């Protein structure tokens, strides 16, 4: 819905929770009326209770209030009570932000009151520049789910989405569904009693997929182009035959699986030699034996077998030169246990030895381990120094328990090698190649088309054709609480392309990814944002007439949400957007804004603060705090009644990435003595849910030095800090130290000029 033609502004001051005792509320009302220019100003002794909220509702209904500033507690408190559809609302934080953090006692009454009055000024100034986001409802958007990859993960995702009532398009590059599972004789058990291998069931699942009317399967096909955005992905699917089909999809599940680490890269463990196989090689032997005696390639019955765990895995912690995979593939211990059972179940006299460095069978896998021991499988903690294949294989190893070097022989040696993800193109490599290609490097041009061939999605995003890869080439999320939160809205990786995993986890993972895909198409239909600003209806708008085509927004957007049209103007794909505002922070001409968050909503707050002149010795410090970590930390400092300087004025921002340098220069121009920015941890282990926000802020501020010099200001007047949500104690110290430092430096020379 759109706000009525004539906006009406109202402010509501709560006098509860001690606000009335510690502050001069009538004075606050006066500020709201006189300076805030609020048409309607009311005080309530208990604003968040039913009566208080009803009062506001009535004003909206009867007085035509369209914009309201609630001067009470933190925006993080009583959020449910203060929910009013269709009106713009700001919150002036008088409780957590003022009375709970300013020192007790009459000596502080003046500064406490000044602080509160400023927050009221800021709240009123902010709301005047806000509009209630209407949201961009797109009922017509596509709710079809594209699943890339027809293995266990892909098939499970397809069925999961179909069973929830959604159309699915499944693209598989080979001629059959089933993927890696088709290689297996049996699988590790999915459920109790975790004692015996189970039937794989890939065939049954494939039959369910092909028999499901909601699922359209493309075999021998690959995705050659993915254009558009969530709700409107235009997908080109090319069959081997060369025919191209087009599908309009709403969201994508990437279940492109893995390949096994090449055996021939492990000569030190006998890789490539006769009768030395990897786990998938053994599955083949077991399949052809089909319950009978397992025979080697040369047809000889296997009477003794050694399993070498962590073969070319876990770096130096595993077996092999250490120059292979640094990670553990997680499933291999259970897989070798299962494979040893193939032998024992067929003939208990077969000697089966599993050489491990750490046996990793978490959860109920412990029962599977016990079951193998019950069957007589021997487990040895060992470091394998070398394997030679041939008619009688030799395994040189150190028994770490008996602490001695031994050689044992075996008819067959099985190397537990790792999973290598199939996640398409590495974007760093892509960017490098493209840059080189654009500068006319012929080889790069060649390489670019090679890369396009290995791409699994061929996205036409300017950031590259596939999902950004996390460590070791897995298309995983960077976040622990949000395993499906990646940098490509509406695209979710599932199964071993996301993280090394076994088949059971892969099916679970695929089900989860299917949900996220479904959620995406529902969000798009309602114009809602995805995590972390789930449900946000606002989205960035640009006044293109003011745009200088500098491309900063398109380059800096962490989510690849912004394309460029032929005239190099930015094209916003709001369905890809996470509403972080990084584009807004990047824009030098300030043409990008959200309905409820813009250069003005913050800029006006900065300007609204009443900055005393240099003689009053009351410095003013602007704090721009990340709304997800630093601002809650400030709130919790209040909750614990810690005290910090009443000279600071804190404004929550969506992300430091959204901080536009104009706010800083405005603040300094209007006589603030310092500006402190508080954002999340940056670097490899960054905690910013908008990926580069904190990084950006530090980068941009490093560039602000010259501006400061022009203003004749010390660099210390702008400070950027990493603050974690648990830093309630530290944040107080940061503030007080900074205030002390600025007091030391003396008032800003800009005072009075603003």
């Amino acid at each position: 819905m759109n706000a009525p033609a004539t906006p009406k502004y109202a402010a509501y001051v709560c006098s509860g929770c001690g606000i009335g005792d510690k502050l001069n509320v009538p004075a606050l009302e006066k500020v709201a009326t006189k300076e805030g220019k609020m048409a309607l100003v009311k005080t309530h002794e208990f604003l968040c209770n039913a009566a208080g909220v009803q009062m506001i509702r009535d004003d909206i209904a009867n007085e035509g209030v369209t914009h309201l500033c609630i001067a009470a507690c933190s925006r993080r408190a009583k959020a449910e009570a203060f929910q009013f559809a269709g009106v713009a609302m700001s919150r002036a934080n008088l409780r957590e932000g003022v009375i709970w953090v300013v020192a007790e006692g009459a000596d502080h009454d003046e500064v406490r009151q000044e602080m509160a009055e400023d927050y009221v000024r800021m709240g009123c100034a902010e709301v005047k520049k806000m509009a209630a986001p209407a949201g961009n409802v797109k009922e017509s958007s596509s709710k079809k789910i594209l699943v890339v990859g027809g293995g266990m993960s892909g098939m499970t995702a397809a069925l999961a989405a179909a069973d929830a009532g959604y159309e699915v398009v499944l693209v598989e590059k080979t001629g059959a569904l089933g993927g890696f599972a088709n290689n297996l004789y049996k699988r590790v058990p999915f459920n109790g009693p975790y004692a015996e291998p189970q039937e794989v069931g890939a065939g049954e699942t494939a039959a369910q997929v092909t028999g499901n009317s909601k699922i359209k399967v493309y075999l021998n096909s690959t995705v050659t182009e993915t254009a558009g955005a969530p709700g409107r992905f235009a997908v080109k699917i090319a069959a081997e035959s060369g025919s191209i089909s087009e599908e309009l999809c709403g969201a994508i599940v990437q279940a492109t699986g893995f390949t096994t680490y090449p055996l021939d890269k492990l000569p030190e463990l006998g890789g490539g030699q006769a009768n030395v196989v990897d786990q998938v090689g053994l599955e083949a032997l077991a399949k052809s034996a089909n319950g009978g005696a397992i025979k080697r390639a040369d047809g000889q019955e296997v009477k003794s077998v050694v399993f070498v765990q962590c073969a070319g895995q876990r770096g130096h912690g595993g077996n092999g030169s250490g120059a292979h995979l640094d990670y553990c593939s997680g499933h291999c211990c259970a897989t070798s246990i299962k494979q040893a059972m193939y032998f024992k179940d067929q003939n208990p006299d077969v000697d089966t030895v599993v050489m491990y460095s750490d046996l990793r069978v978490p959860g109920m896998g412990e029962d599977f381990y016990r079951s193998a021991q019950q069957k007589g499988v021997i487990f040895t903690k060992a470091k394998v120094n070398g394997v030679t294949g041939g008619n009688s294989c030799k395994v040189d190893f150190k028994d770490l328990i008996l602490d001695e070097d031994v050689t044992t022989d075996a008819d067959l040696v099985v190397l537990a090698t790792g999973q290598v993800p199939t996640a398409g193109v590495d974007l760093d490599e892509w960017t490098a190649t493209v840059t080189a290609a654009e500068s006319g490097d012929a080889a790069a041009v060649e390489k670019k088309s090679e890369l396009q061939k290995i791409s699994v999605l061929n996205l036409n995003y300017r950031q590259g054709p596939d999902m950004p890869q996390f460590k070791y080439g897995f298309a995983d999320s960077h976040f622990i609480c949000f395993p499906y939160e990646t940098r490509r809205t509406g695209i979710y990786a599932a199964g071993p392309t996301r993280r090394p995993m076994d088949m059971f986890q892969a099916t679970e993972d695929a089900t989860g990814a299917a949900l996220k895909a479904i959620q995406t198409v529902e969000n798009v239909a309602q114009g809602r944002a995805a995590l972390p600003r789930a449900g946000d209806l606002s989205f960035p708008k640009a006044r293109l007439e003011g745009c200088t085509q500098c491309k900063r927004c398109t380059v800096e957007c962490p989510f690849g949400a912004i394309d460029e049209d032929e005239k190099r103007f930015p094209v916003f794909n709001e369905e890809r957007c996470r509403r972080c505002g990084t584009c807004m922070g990047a824009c030098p001409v300030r043409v990008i804004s959200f309905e409820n968050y813009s250069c003005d909503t913050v800029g006006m707050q900065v300007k609204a603060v009443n900055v005393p002149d240099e003689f009053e010795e009351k410095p003013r410090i602007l704090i721009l705090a990340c709304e997800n970590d630093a601002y809650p930390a400030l709130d919790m400092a209040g909750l614990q009644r810690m005290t910090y300087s009443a000279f600071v004025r804190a404004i929550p921002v969506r992300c430091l990435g959204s901080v536009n340098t104009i706010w800083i220069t405005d603040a300094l121009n209007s006589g603030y003595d310092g500006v402190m920015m508080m954002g999340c941890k940056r670097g490899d282990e960054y905690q910013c849910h908008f990926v580069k926000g904190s990084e950006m802020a530090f980068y941009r501020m490093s560039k602000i030095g010259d501006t400061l010099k022009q203003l004749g200001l010390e660099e210390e007047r702008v400070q950027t800090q990493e603050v974690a949500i648990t830093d309630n104690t530290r944040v107080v110290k940061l503030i007080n130290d900074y205030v002390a430092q600025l007091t030391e430096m003396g008032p800003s020379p800009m005072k009075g000029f603003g």
Partner: protein
Amino acid sequence: MTASIATNQTILVVGGGIAGMTAALEAAECGKQVILAEKTPTLGGRTSLLYRYFPKMCHPTCGLEINLKRIRGNPNVRVMTMTEVAAVSGSRGDYNVTLKIKPRYVTEACTGCGDCGKAVTAEVPNPANYGLDKIKAAYLPHGMAYPQRFVIDPSIVGTADGEAAKAACKFGAVDLAMQEETVEFKVGSVVWATGWRPFDAAKIQPYGYDRFDNVITSLEFERLADPRGPTGGKIVRPGDGKEAKNIAFIQCAGSRDENYLRHCSRICCMATLKQTQYVREAWGEEAKSTVYYIDIRAIDRFEDFYANVWNDATVSFIKSKVARIALNEENGNPVLHGVNTEGYHRYATEHDLVVLAVGMEPEVTGVKLPDDIVLDSSNFIEGSKSGGMFGAGSAASPLDVNRAVQSATAASLKAIQVIHKTASTEASA
């Protein structure tokens, strides 16, 4: 409350930890109606009592803030705290559930101002710190508590303290007459995200958790390291407040042991590796962590975290299940007795503090569950006979947070499928 709050198109999620919040939110953000029932006074569960996560060393509170914001902003989720499931009857698509709501003695009118807490003198063991310290008997569970409403401990109801709390509240939010309530309604599907509890370390008698002050659990250690914890983040001994620099971590404390928990709890190895880094951060080169283990289960990409800790000079690893702990009566140091099985070396080693990496026991262990539920041999929830109820997160299997959330997301869709089937059959009928 009436049955009308829910229909067979509603999903009930039991448990308000990170798995339960996730299951509820993912469904709600797909447009489904969800009731989220939590046993304690606040959402957040075990993760809200963790200081940091492995392997990123980031703060669980950060994710909690995002999830709470999602819940505040989503009318599809109805949160019920201090609420337990008393009974579930019916089957897939059509369950009748009975919930019991314990009295909080504080109504929705609470603003979290804290006056009642100031008025009360009695103190109770602080649940947010596993009882390592005390809090007022009228309290906010912790800084991130949601709903942000105080709780009055039953122990002061009917006492002068209780009356003092009542008198102190300007908003009349304290209701000492509050009684346990029972509500019944229909739901289509139930997701059990009931989580886990630390295995009772006192049962592991050779380690003397019940006899020695300086033998604590990994969860208690987590609170010691947390700036919001009982020691303000100082790693000191509960016994005598002495700085704990030389710390032993004993793995598989309860797990992988047929006398206690037959399963591997999966998270304890990584949790210990993480905690060795707390020790390092606290004491630098003076720190000394010794990890006594059977197998280090740093699965998949966590391996590199293990590799880094392995290369940390302040941390050493001994492949050994510690046989027993004795006490040095002079200095209160626990003395660990055992054998390093890599080559058979006996040890009798003194440490300042011993941290038992206790295993995960399903919270539902010993709880009477609906007959429809299917449990495995360790009481993890495999699913339900009629296929309308699902385990999620560490209620389904011992999982780390990342996997628990993944599992909860999957469970959420399974619940949605049940709702969808019911709806479509009703439509066609």
